[in-house]
């Protein structure tokens, strides 16, 4: 067969189908150890492309003969070079990731989560390469997009296919791990962009405040997205209750972990807010609510369609972050925190409109894993 380009979408399908996949990752060792394509059945070999310029003789013995090999690099060029060497060395089924880790980082996989009571649906857009989750909630021809990524074509194309209009865009908090597509979506669609005012004190553009008790209606008036002020990850973090069925928790509560309170430099103060939100405020809500977070931390959290969701009641039993005494909790959220996300300060500044990097720079800033979670 020779060498064939394969898209991030097709790789996502392979990863989710749990088929065995062998990845030859030819980025340098630091890039690989920082961040890679993960999956339950994914096996890796990391050899930098600059050690394979003259051919693949030295690694032939470490490669499977009976399985597809996917060659991955930062942008595609180096994988093609190595892919050609593999074909020359007699390997038959060699795939190269189109656009490299760059496109892997950006690809969004839309999954339907469920229906709304009075018509309409809620979809989760899974950014599998970076662990970000955003939402597309549609009712009676109108849509609200929550925690949009900067690759907004995914949402506008999805809306166009369904002949629906994006009316509202909101961010549950000021993001530090990825660049929000909120403003861009507002510009493209004329939608209203909402932000929690306490996170938006320094923003350089107009927005609509997202305030507790002030419902946002989408389409059929009974489909209400009710904001719920839940500080902790940031001072302004606000959750949404959609249709009395779904709890969009932003970066406060994840399926296997909880949010970190330190990315705006205030771990100590916000640790109490986080505790209060997780151990009091959320506890008073119906435990039948389906939790839909803004991130996942590991592919083990993905369901059979690639979706990330859990019942609030189940999380109170299973999520270690919800089962700590006060002392343990304080230690978990303030000590031994994971490294901070790549360029997180620049990303926050971009989301505030204080700096305006070009597309290429925005892409570079977002490279790498998100690290918004604390695993208990």
């Amino acid at each position: 067969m020779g060498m064939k380009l394969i898209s991030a979408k097709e790789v996502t399908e392979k990863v989710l189908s749990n088929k065995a996949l062998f990845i030859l990752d030819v980025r340098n060792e630091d890039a690989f150890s920082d961040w890679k394509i993960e999956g339950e059945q994914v096996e890796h070999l990391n050899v930098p492309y600059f050690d394979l310029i003259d051919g693949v003789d030295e690694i032939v013995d470490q490669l499977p003969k009976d399985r597809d090999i996917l060659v991955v690099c930062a942008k595609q060029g180096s994988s093609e070079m190595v892919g050609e060497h593999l074909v020359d060395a007699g390997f038959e089924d060699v795939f190269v990731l189109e656009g490299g880790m760059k496109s892997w980082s950006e690809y969004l996989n839309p999954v339907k989560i469920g229906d709304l009571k009075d018509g309409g649906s809620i979809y989760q857009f899974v950014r599998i390469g970076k662990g970000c989750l955003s939402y597309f909630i549609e009712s009676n021809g109108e849509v609200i997009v929550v925690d949009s990524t900067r690759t907004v074509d995914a949402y506008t194309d999805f809306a166009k296919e369904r002949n629906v209009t994006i009316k509202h865009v909101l961010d549950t908090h000021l993001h530090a791990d990825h660049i929000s597509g909120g403003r861009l979506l507002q510009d493209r669609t004329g939608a209203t962009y909402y932000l929690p005012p306490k996170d938006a004190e320094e923003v350089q553009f107009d927005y609509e405040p997202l305030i507790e008790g002030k419902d946002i209606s989408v389409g059929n008036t009974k489909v209400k997205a009710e904001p719920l002020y839940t500080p902790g990850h940031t001072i302004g973090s606000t959750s949404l209750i959609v249709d009395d069925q779904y709890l969009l928790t932003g970066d406060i509560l994840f399926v296997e972990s909880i949010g970190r309170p330190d990315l705006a430099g205030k771990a100590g103060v916000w640790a109490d807010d986080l505790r209060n939100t997780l151990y009091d405020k959320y506890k008073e809500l119906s435990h039948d609510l389906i939790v839909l977070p803004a991130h996942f931390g590991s592919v083990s959290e993905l369901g059979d369609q690639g979706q990330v969701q859990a019942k609030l009641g189940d999380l109170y039993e299973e999520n270690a972050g919800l089962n700590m005494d006060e002392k343990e909790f304080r230690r978990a959220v303030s000590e031994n925190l994971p490294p901070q996300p790549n360029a997180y300060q620049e990303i926050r500044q971009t989301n505030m409109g204080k700096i305006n990097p070009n597309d290429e720079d925005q892409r570079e800033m977002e490279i790498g894993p998100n690290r918004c979670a604390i695993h208990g």
Partner: protein
Amino acid sequence: MNADKVLDAKGLACPMPIVKTKKAINELNSGEVLEVHATDKGAKSDLAAWSKSGGHELLQDTEEDGVLKFWIKKG
């Protein structure tokens, strides 16, 4: 910084900056310095990693107006 040879790899995408650097350094003697100009941002970490694995020494790197410059001493 003085260089024994200058390689212009501006406008080239990965893997070409390193392919050319490797070729250029092969033509130098041990201890001589190669100066590389590149615009591919990935070159920064890759040249550092490549120098290390090849036993060369990355003496200095700068960035000016989008042009990355590297000085590599052949090992």
